[in-house]
């Protein structure tokens, strides 16, 4: 690897990070950057094609849906919910999963046995069904979607971090720290944790992408945010109905979703390389 890519300046990081930054900024400043009101319906403007096709109207860059709502504006506002869910759910899952994984991997013995069994049982549930079940129980709404994703996906962190912490705990420097007289918790936090941080960061980014998908799936089946606020999943669900008349309503949210999820996973990989002193 040359110096530039070792410093993390790889095109992968730039492309992924660039897309995420663009999408994030657009979502944060949605009221300022969205060309139209995402909820404004105008049946005179229904199913306008994107700007490069005949019949496009200026100001409706990606066309409109069957109710005449501007697609670009809806995608931008939908990004708000996608990012809130991505960050909140992934961080919650990460905190719970990494903590339990670290404890199971470092302490071993009973702690490990109990935590590992819980993870096994947890993973026996099909995740999407589990999510639908949880949202049905918790009720729809932003916070229950976030909670549902965190409840389902902490096992992903737990398994990986447990395995890594276990490997680290067998290293001589952990033994050396014990000889020197450090406490168990101190060793776990000071010696083991820094060595699993690269994996935590990569998983966190990956999990954000997964959270975006799960949220889209939930809103696709109408179980996410029950208000009229546009979400990527609900736009896709609507676009599916009019695919033969207005393909763009389905295609653009799909592209947005795929790019975002892909970017999260690529960004995570690149960050991992960056955080790891040996790979760096």
């Amino acid at each position, binding site marked *: 690897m040359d110096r530039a890519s070792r410093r993390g300046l790889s095109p992968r990081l730039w492309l992924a990070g660039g897309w995420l930054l663009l999408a994030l900024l657009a979502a944060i400043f949605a009221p300022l950057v969205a060309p139209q009101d995402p909820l404004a319906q105008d049946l005179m403007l229904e199913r306008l094609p994107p700007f490069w096709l005949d019949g496009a109207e200026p100001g409706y860059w990606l066309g409109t849906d069957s109710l005449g709502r501007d697609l670009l504006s809806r995608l931008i506002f939908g990004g708000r919910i996608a990012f809130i869910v991505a960050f909140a759910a992934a961080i919650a899952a990460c905190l719970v999963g990494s903590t339990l994984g670290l404890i199971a991997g470092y302490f071993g013995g009973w702690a490990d046995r109990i935590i590992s069994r819980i993870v096994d049982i947890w993973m026996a549930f099909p995740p999407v069904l589990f999510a639908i079940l949880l949202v049905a129980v918790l009720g729809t709404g932003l916070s229950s979607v976030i909670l549902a994703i965190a409840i389902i996906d902490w096992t992903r962190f737990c398994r990986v971090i447990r395995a890594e912490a276990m490997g680290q705990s067998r*290293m*001589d*420097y952990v*033994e*050396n720290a014990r000889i*020197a007289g*450090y406490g168990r918790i101190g060793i776990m936090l000071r010696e083991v944790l*820094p*060595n699993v941080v690269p994996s935590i960061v990569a998983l966190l980014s990956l999990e954000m992408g997964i959270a975006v998908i799960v949220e889209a799936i939930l809103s696709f089946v109408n179980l996410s945010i029950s208000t009229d606020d546009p979400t990527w999943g609900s736009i896709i669900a609507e676009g599916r109905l009019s695919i033969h008349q207005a393909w763009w309503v389905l295609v653009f949210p799909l592209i947005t979703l795929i790019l975002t999820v892909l970017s999260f996973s690529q960004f995570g990989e690149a960050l991992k390389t960056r955080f790891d*002193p040996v790979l760096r």
Partner: protein
Amino acid sequence: MSACLDIANLSAVLPNGQRVLRSVSLSVQPGEVRALVGESGAGKTMIGKAVLGVLPSSVRIVEGDMRLEGEDLGRLQPKARRTLIGARTALIPQDPLTALNPSRRIGPQMTDRLVRILGWSGEKADTRIRQLLDEVQIRDPDRVLKSYPHELSGGMRQRVLIAAAFAAEPRLIVADEPTTALDVTVQKQILRLIAALQREHGTAILFVTHDLGVVAKISQKVSVLYAGKVVEEADTAALFAAPQHPYTRALMAATPRYTDPFASLKPVDEAVLAGLAAEIASADQAWRRPHG
């Protein structure tokens, strides 16, 4: 004057009841180097770990005393024992590649222990570490202290670990095959460094090795170990001049000689091993009777 380390009658078993240490007794006087020599699996490292309180959880000590400067380690509360071991001992590990935390810079890693465990000021710890790095002949301490472990060679890392071991002025250092993972040319330098620092600081060392050549160079006393049992112990000079136990003699005969590089390697004599096995079996039987 009490011994720096005194192990009496130490036995340890695996969960299946097999003894891994068989009534081991040995002592290390202050400022003395005792070599612990034997084949792999003889329990040399196990003794070192027992002293330092880091035995694998599957190994259980069933009998015997370990005294560190007269303090009975078995009688101390776990916390007090940790503190005592942490303050008075140190380890020079076998593999310098895994003995340093890869995600932390050398400097903080070395000073941390002095500051957090022994309560030194940061400045004092830094001065001390630099002094030790100088003693292990690291000429560019600034660069080394700022480096991550993977940026240093194996020999450099072992120097750093030696410096770290001596930094807190421990009374006893357990050196667990400290040259085994190194290049042959580096081995010699490292051995010389350990010997020099040991003399300078007057630290007692329990030197675990399988290499009789190393034993001859560095130690004053030797314990020869086989299957977790001390089969012979003597002054190093006396042992090499006149080994008493047949196993010791066989072990010496099996050491390759540089004077005759084309001679084939000899394994330890079968008859001797058979004799040892019988000796150990009868010892185990005698030991089991009172221990149920």
